[in-house]
């Protein structure tokens, strides 16, 4: 029981991790939703492996403020994203767009998995075939023993 309490206590901070670092006031919950979603879809260009929502960098704060202002001003999601991409390029999208330039990024892992699977499959099959070939033919005595064993099994199943 104590262990359960300890684990829960250690996990509790995770609930707080989604709390916003900024205090941007919203009257409209729908707008707040959009702001949060946009902050998660845009990348922080300083801490490049984090979204705007997650990053503590000052630029991230500035850009979040920009998103906030534009959401409040009634700009659409597409407009706001276009605004950022016009200034920072595709890299500002946290989820990379699927373009010919990013095909390798998106489909590469799947390709590697398939290739690896094929190679593995062929390797295993080849090795099994080799193992059988190495074992060689059964001698006459072994064949007789095999037949006897098989017959015994059948008999045992009755």
């Amino acid at each position: 029981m104590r262990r359960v309490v300890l684990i829960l206590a250690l996990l509790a901070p995770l609930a707080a991790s989604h709390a916003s670092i900024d205090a941007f006031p919203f009257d409209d919950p729908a707008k707040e939703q959009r702001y949060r979603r946009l902050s998660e879809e845009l990348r922080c260009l300083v801490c490049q492996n984090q979204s705007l929502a997650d990053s503590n960098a000052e630029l991230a704060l500035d850009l979040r403020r920009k998103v906030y202002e534009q959401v409040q001003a009634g700009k659409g999601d597409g407009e706001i994203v276009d605004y950022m991409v016009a200034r920072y390029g595709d890299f500002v999208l946290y989820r990379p767009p699927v373009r010919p330039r990013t095909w390798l990024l998106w489909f590469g892992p799947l390709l590697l998995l398939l290739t690896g699977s094929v190679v593995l499959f062929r390797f295993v099959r080849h090795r099994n075939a080799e193992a059988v070939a190495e074992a060689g033919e059964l001698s006459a005595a072994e064949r007789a023993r095999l037949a006897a064993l098989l017959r015994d099994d059948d008999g045992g199943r009755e």
Partner: protein
Amino acid sequence: MKTRFVLPLVVFGLLVVMFYFALVQIGKGEYNPRDIPSPLVGRPAPSFILPTVADPGVELDDAAFAEHPVSLFNVWASWCTACRQEHPFLMELARQGAVAIYGLNYKDQRADARQWLSRFGDPYLASAFDAEGRVGIDWGVYGVPETFVVDRAGRVRHKHIGPLTRKVWDEKIMPLLATIRAEES
């Protein structure tokens, strides 16, 4: 050697060559995987109007670029240590009169900025005071220092990320200046 051993070896060899090449480029400072290419290159410079660092009553706007065949727009700040690195080179450029240099003082305090310029020297024809960094966002600034090359027509021709060095100047900017000057004639 069995063919199925050759193929992974070849792939490994190719990877070694690729990684070595990349590491050498990074070591020479010619490649930084964290650099973000600017979508502004080849497009008109974002228009702006800001008070100058020297005198809040005087303004600097993008019309300034039309006064010179080529201008540098250098993003700097008194709190930026890398800017100290490139500063002597900017001073040299200003002394030579090679190119017009304008500054964008990014997210700084006016007093600190002025003190920095008087202490180390002022290579700028004028520095725009972008206290909140809003003009910086329009230019796609994500770090300091950054330097833009803008032609007379107000088009961004190049963006350099990080301190501007003689090497970058000789290898990347000079050829560009020659191209731009040739376009003018």
